[in-house]
C-alpha cells in the first residue's frame, strides 16, 4: 500500500504505544514479583536487589508442580477427545455435507451464546449425580461439550473449503471413505487442527469458573482456578502472589510463542466465515 511519510511515522508511533500498553501489566507483575517478599511494593520499579528466590518460594509453597500436574491432566482429557470428535463432526458437516447439516450447524452455533454461568448450577448437580464431583472429570466432560460449538464450527469451516475434487479423485481411485480421509483430508486439516489444539489448550488451561465451582480442593483445579487460592495464601505478600501468578501463566505463553506462526496462519485461512 502506498502511504505518505507522516502517516507512516504516526502509524508506527501509535503502534508502539499500543505495544507498550499491552505489555505494561506483565512488566508490573514482574517488577512486583522481584520485590522483597515481606513488603508491599508500590508501583513499577526495577528493584535494586531482584529477589529471584521469590519464584522458588512461590513454586514450592504454592504447590505449583501439583497444580500444573492437575491442569495437564485436565488438558489431556479435554483436548485430544475434543479434537477428534470435532474433526469427525466437522468433516461430516463440511466434507460429506450430510443432509440436515445446516440445521445441525445452527444447533451447535447457538451453543456459543450460552454463557457458562447459566450452566454451572445444573452442571454441579449433574456431576454430583455422576459421582465425578471434586475430581478433574467434573471439569473435563463439560468442557468437551462446551467446546463443541466452536470446534465443530472451526473444523467444518476448514473442510468446506477443501475442493471436493480432491476427495472424489481419491474415491475414484478405489479408496474407501476412511482411506480418503486418512490420506488426503487429515494432512490438509493439520493447520486448522493445530490452531484449534492451541486454542483449546489455552482455554482449558485458563478455565476459571468451572474448576472453582466443581472442584473443591484448589490443588486439583486448573492453574487459573487455583489463582484465588493463591490470593488467599499470599495476600500478605504481593511479591509472592505475582511470582506465583507469573509461573502459572508461563506455560501457556511459551506454547503460544512457539506455535504462533502456525496459529496465525490458520486464522488467516479464513476460520472467520459466515
Amino acid at each position, binding site marked *: 500500500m502506498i502511504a505518505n511519510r507522516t502517516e507512516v511515522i504516526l502509524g508506527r508511533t501509535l503502534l508502539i504505544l499500543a505495544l507498550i500498553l499491552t505489555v505494561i501489566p506483565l512488566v508490573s507483575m514482574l517488577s512486583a514479583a522481584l520485590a522483597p517478599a515481606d513488603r508491599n511494593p508500590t508501583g513499577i520499579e526495577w528493584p535494586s536487589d531482584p529477589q529471584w528466590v521469590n519464584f522458588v518460594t512461590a513454586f514450592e509453597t504454592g504447590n505449583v508442580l501439583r497444580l500444573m500436574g492437575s491442569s495437564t491432566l485436565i488438558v489431556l482429557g479435554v483436548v485430544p477427545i475434543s479434537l477428534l470428535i470435532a474433526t469427525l463432526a466437522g468433516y461430516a458437516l463440511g466434507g460429506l455435507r450430510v443432509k440436515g447439516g445446516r440445521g445441525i450447524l445452527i444447533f451447535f452455533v447457538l451453543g456459543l451464546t450460552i454463557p457458562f454461568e447459566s450452566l454451572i448450577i445444573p452442571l454441579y448437580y449433574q456431576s454430583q449425580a455422576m459421582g465425578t464431583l471434586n475430581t478433574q472429570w467434573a471439569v473435563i466432560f463439560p468442557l468437551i461439550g462446551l467446546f463443541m460449538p466452536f470446534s465443530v464450527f472451526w473444523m467444518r469451516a476448514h473442510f468446506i473449503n477443501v475442493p471436493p475434487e480432491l476427495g472424489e479423485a481419491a474415491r475414484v481411485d478405489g479408496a474407501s471413505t476412511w482411506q480418503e480421509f486418512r490420506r488426503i483430508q487429515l494432512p490438509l486439516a493439520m493447520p486448522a487442527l493445530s490452531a484449534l489444539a492451541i486454542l483449546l489448550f489455552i482455554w482449558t488451561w485458563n478455565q476459571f469458573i468451572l474448576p472453582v465451582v466443581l472442584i473443591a480442593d484448589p490443588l486439583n483445579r486448573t492453574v487459573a482456578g487455583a489463582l484465588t487460592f493463591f490470593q*488467599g495464601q499470599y495476600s500478605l505478600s504481593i511479591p509472592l502472589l505475582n511470582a506465583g501468578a507469573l509461573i502459572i501463566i508461563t506455560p501457556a505463553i511459551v506454547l503460544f510463542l512457539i506455535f504462533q506462526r502456525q496459529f496465525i496462519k490458520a486464522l488467516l485461512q479464513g476460520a472467520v466465515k459466515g
Partner: protein
Amino acid sequence: MPSSRRPAGRRAIALGALAVVGVVLSACAPGAAAPDTSADAVDVSTELTSDEVTLTIADETGFPVTDKLTEEFTKQHPNVTFNITRDTFQNLTANAPKLLASSTPPDLIRLPTLGETVKDGLVLDLDPYFDAYGWDAWPASQLAPLRMSEDGVRGSGALYQLGLGYSITGIYMNTALADQLGIDGPPATMAELEEDLATAKAGGVQPIMAGDKDGVVNFVTQAAMNQYADKDEFMAWMFNEPGATYNTEGNTEGAELIRRWADEGYFPSDINALDYFTFVSQFSDGGALFTFNGNWEAANYQAALGDDVTFFLVPPIEEGGDHVAMGAANSFSVAAKSQHKNEIVYFLNWIHTDPVARQIIVDVTGASPGGDPSLALPEVESGSLIEKALEMSAQIGEENGQVDFMANTTAGIYAGSIIPESQLLVTSQITGAEFTERVQKFYESEVGG
C-alpha cells in the same frame, strides 16, 4: 418425495418432545428430603482407635493454626494423620453445603455460619459427645452460639460446632503515634475515642485504619452498634429468632455514628480498595493511630510494632460501664456423613484439653483456648498483646458482654448485603438508617422466604 409431509411431521415431533420435557420438568422436582441420620448413628466412644486413620479437614487460607495442631496431634498419636485442604473464605462459605452433601465430605470443616446445614442434616449432632466427654464443665455461654434448634434458631438446641479457639475483638492503638499526638492512653468512653480521632485527624495521622474491599470495616461498624444496641435484642436477630429485627434504634444510632466518622474523614479515602491483608499491613507499617481487629492478629502486630502497640476493648458509652465486644468460636463442624466421627471428635476434645494444644492456640492465634475454665491457662509473655487479649476475653466473660459477629447471621448476608451496604456507608453514600433498613430487608428475604 412428498415434501409437504416433512414440515408437518417435524412439527409434530417437536411438539411431542416439548410435551415430554414439560411433563418431566413438572413431575420430577429436584432435591430430596433430608436423610434420616438417626438410623446410622455410630457408637459414641471417647477412646481413640489404634488403627491407621487419615482425617480430612477443609479450612480457610491464611490460618495456619490447624497445621500446627494437627502436627502436634500426629506427634502424640502417630497412627492418626491429617489431610488439610484450604480455600479462600468466600469459596469455602460458598462451597461448604455442597462439600458436606457430597459422597466424600471432609471429616471436619471450617463453618462460620451453620445456615441450613442443620435443617438438611449435613452436620453431626455433638450432644452425645457432650455427655460422654463431660463438656458441661465448659462455659455454657461459650457453646451457646454453636447450638441450633430444630427451627434454625441459634443459641439453644443441639450442639453442632466447636471452636478452635475463641476470639475477642477490640481496638489496637499505635502508642508511639499516640504519644506524638499527646494522647496518653486508651480512651475510656466512646466520646473520648471520638476526641482522639479528631486529634489524630488534626495532627495529620490517619485516625482509623480499616478496609472494606472484603467487608472488614464491619469490625468498626458492629463495634459502634454494640455500644448502643440492646445486646439481647441484637443476639436474637443474629440467632434468627422469629420476629427479631436488625432495624433497631440502637443499631441505627451505631450506623449513624459510622456515617459521621466517614463524613469527618476518619477512614482511609480508598477504604473500598483495601482488603484484609492490606489493612493489616498498613497498620503494621505504622500507618494509623487505631485499628479495629481481633486477637488473631496480635502476634503479627506485636512482631511489626514491638512495644509501640496496645490492645483494648471497645470503650462503653458511659465511664465505668460494662463492655460489649464481638467474639466467636473459630467454628468447625463435623460432617454428618464422616466416616471417622469418634476420631475427629476426639481431636476436637484434645484441642480443648491438652496443654500443648491450648498453648498452640494461644501462641498462634492469641485466642482463648476455651474449654474447662479450671484448666491452667497457657503461658503468655508478660506485657504482650496476647496477654492483653486473654485478659480481655476473661473480662468480657465476667461482664457477659460477648456478642457474635453480625456477618455470620445467615449464609448470604455478608457478601450479599452487609459488605456492599457498608461500602456505601463508609464512603458517605447512604445514611445509617438506610444501612440498617436494607440489611434487614435482605435478612427477611433470606430467612423468611
